[in-house]
């Protein structure tokens, strides 16, 4: 082979190699883009789930707080007015008793 033929062959090989590298780079880039897209999709999904969980947590917290607002203070002594009921005779037990139990009940 002549030098010219060698040169042409080398140029062809180099061109082919260059093309392969370019294709591999493109393939790599495509993979990265796909991976990034997948990661972004997964992140968006997680963010959505996290937002939902946060909402549930806030709701439960609000419910708990509402429940606690309705729970009487454990140290409270409440002054329930029983005078009308006692006067009306809706009472049982000794009037000398040191402990009075006010009962709230319903017949159903």
């Amino acid at each position, binding site marked *: 082979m002549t030098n010219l033929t060698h040169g042409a062959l080398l140029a062809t090989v180099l061109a082919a190699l260059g093309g392969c590298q370019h294709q591999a780079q493109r393939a790599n880039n495509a993979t990265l883009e796909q991976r990034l897209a997948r990661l972004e999709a997964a992140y968006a999904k997680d963010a959505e789930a996290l937002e939902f969980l946060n909402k549930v947590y806030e709701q439960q917290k609000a419910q708990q*707080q509402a429940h*606690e*607002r*309705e*729970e*009487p*203070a*454990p*140290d*409270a*002594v*409440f*002054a*329930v*007015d*029983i*005078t*009308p*009921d006692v006067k*009306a*005779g*809706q*009472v*049982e037990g*000794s*009037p*000398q*008793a*040191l*402990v*009075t*139990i*006010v*009962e*709230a*009940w*319903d*017949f*159903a």
Partner: protein
Amino acid sequence: MVVHPQVVMDAHRAGCAAAKQGKFVAFKDAFWDKAFDPYAAAREPSKLGVDNIMAIAKDLGLDTAKLKIDMEGPQCRAQVDNDMSELAKFHVSGTPFFFINGKVLDGAQPKEEFKKIIDERLKVAEASGVSGADYYEKEVFGKGEKQFRSKQDPKRP
């Protein structure tokens, strides 16, 4: 306390009317046995109705004509309404619910829970030196909190 007015308002007013004849406790006990229990067994609302109330009252020797008039009269209506308003003030929204010398016991609790609070309140009452006849009026109603306070609220001075 009336949680189910559509079915038991008559019974509560009848309790008030029975008290006017000195038989509140007898009526209340008989109503549980002869009205509530059969009602609960068969879910039959008529067991809580006026006809059965009158039958129970008759068995107890109450003057049923007077009972009916008193039940429907303004005093017993006001009495039941006042009881409900008083309990609502302290955020009572369900039954059974108890105040033991002003201390809350909510729900159908075991006897031990009642005993614990009763013993504790009895000690406080005994230490006060106030007689039983005056204790509730002076110490519980007189010094107790006039409004509901939740566990989240600070104690008022």
